[in-house]
């Protein structure tokens, strides 16, 4: 059975997050000192060789991303932390920021040194004002101690727009604009915040950095799955016994997560489906539960690891009703900039709602498959491209549930 392995959450429950001395006594800020003793290129290579990939959902090699900004000569670069945790069922970044904020700051400062930046922003969702308060208190302590050197960190609040989890939309929002994604290229690593090279990484990604610098790339890359090494924090919701969070190596299987640490299904009922990675993730049926959770294994079964949200549904759940609700989410959260997403999410919800109300036809299912296929390739950003996944994967694995609602 899978067991927890805490790298990112190593200090959670062991230190007082509002006592910076606790963090320092636990070895905190030694990694930043070590990083600063290293050549910047060698430091980035170490992060690259560790195999650490973005923990926000996109899974890009972290050190590789850093290298794009490192190479550029300019008067200013920025280190941005994506803490706009808006993916339904996800709250891991809140836990990190509330319980161990200094490890996030240390990771950001190491990135700052590596790419040559003295300014960091944490873009924290507006729904977390208590997290913003905690971060500001912790930043004030770090400043008094002088542990961040000349690296400055400022917190900015999001406004409840799911799309701002997309890095270029997030940058637009920090600049004080509507959070609409930019056309890429140029990518933020080259031209980001106020036109300057900008690294945008998730909270969990930065929080991995101090341990990687301390223990080395070889240590990290031997944990979990080879192509997506390390651990992942998972947050369990729905009909699972242990509705909680834990951190596990990335080679555990979905079955282990739900029936091992998750404790199985509430009330001894049978399992029906699990949606992993947030509300844009694919629905996974029983026969695929032995898949490891790592990024590439999940992609192979048409699912995602995403943010690590694990939404479990028992045998009594109405899949069509749940997907109807999810399709309403995407209609609401589409920013409206590109037509395939603005119109596509609206029509998808319209058809899902019609089917859920018992007024659908077989032709509607074909229409949704067609529309979903178009959106996957034609939408400007990840929001619209991923939005059809719940519909398409349930049409594939749970078609009988749709058929049962046909007019």
């Amino acid at each position, binding site marked *: 059975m899978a067991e927890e392995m805490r790298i990112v959450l190593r200090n959670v429950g062991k230190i007082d997050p509002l006592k910076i001395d606790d963090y320092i006594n636990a070895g905190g800020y030694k990694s930043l000192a070590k990083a600063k003793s290293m050549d910047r290129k060698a430091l980035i290579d170490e992060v690259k060789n560790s195999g650490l990939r973005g923990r926000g959902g996109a899974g890009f090699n972290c050190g590789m991303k850093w290298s794009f900004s490192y190479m550029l000569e300019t008067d200013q670069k920025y280190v941005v932390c994506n803490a706009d945790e*808006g993916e339904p069922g996800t*709250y891991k970044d809140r836990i990190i920021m509330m319980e161990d904020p200094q490890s996030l700051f240390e990771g950001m400062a190491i990135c700052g040194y590596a790419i040559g930046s003295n300014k960091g922003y944490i873009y924290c969702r507006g729904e977390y004002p208590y997290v913003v308060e905690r971060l500001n208190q912790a930043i004030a302590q770090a400043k008094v101690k002088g542990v961040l050197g000349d690296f400055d960190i400022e917190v900015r609040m*999001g*406004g*409840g727009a799911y799309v701002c989890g997309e890095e270029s939309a997030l940058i637009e929002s920090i600049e004080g604009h509507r959070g609409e994604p930019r056309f890429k290229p140029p990518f933020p690593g080259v031209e980001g915040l106020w036109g300057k090279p900008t690294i945008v990484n998730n909270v969990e990604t930065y929080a991995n950095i101090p341990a990687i610098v301390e223990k080395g790339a070889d240590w990290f890359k031997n944990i979990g799955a080879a192509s997506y090494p390390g651990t992942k924090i998972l947050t369990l919701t*729905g009909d699972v016994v242990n509705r909680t969070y834990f951190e596990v190596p990335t080679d555990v299987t979905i079955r282990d997560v739900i029936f091992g640490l998750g404790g199985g299904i509430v009330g001894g009922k049978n399992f029906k489906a699990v949606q992993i990675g947030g*509300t844009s993730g694919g629905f996974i049926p029983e026969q695929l539960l032995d898949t490891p959770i790592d990024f590439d294994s999940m992609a192979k079964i048409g699912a995602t690891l995403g943010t690590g949200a694990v939404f479990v549904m028992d045998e009594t759940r109405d899949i069509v009703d749940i997907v109807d*609700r999810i399709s309403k989410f995407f209609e609401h959260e589409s920013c409206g900039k590109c037509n395939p997403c603005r119109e596509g999410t609206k029509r998808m919800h319209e058809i899902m709602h019609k089917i859920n109300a018992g007024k659908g036809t077989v032709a509607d299912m074909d229409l949704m498959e067609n529309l979903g296929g178009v959106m996957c390739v034609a939408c400007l950003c990840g929001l619209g491209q991923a939005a059809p996944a719940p519909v398409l994967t349930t049409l594939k694995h749970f078609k009988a549930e749709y058929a049962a609602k046909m007019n």
Partner: protein
Amino acid sequence: MADYKSIIDAYKDLPGGIIEAYHALQREFSYIPEEAIPYAAQVFGVSKPRAHGVATFYSYLRVGKRGKNVIRICESAPCHIAGADKVVAALEKELGIKMGESTSDGKFTLEFTECVGQCQATPVITINSKPYGDVTAEKIPAILAEYK
């Protein structure tokens, strides 16, 4: 109560600070007063439509009056299957208003929200952003009593 101009002025030197100014207004008034939008436009050097466009883009921000205590009910999938509809019904009954409305005494507004990141305890509501988890219809009167 502070006036909206001094609240906005406090952010005038912050690059991209218009959203932070809107949050500050909302902390004071529980919403963004209509008349604050043209002033924010002037202070941050953008057009009025643009300032309005920013304020209305973000669902956490609200332009125009609403109740002093804003109750938001999460309707994202994990809360949906945990019985958010029963919580909605209980709140509507207790306050005598429908979702999206405010009580006539100006004390409460009911709104839907998407995930607020407290999914260890679904269904979740927030009152002035303070989360309440594992909410049931039975718990509603006691929760609201704190704000009456």
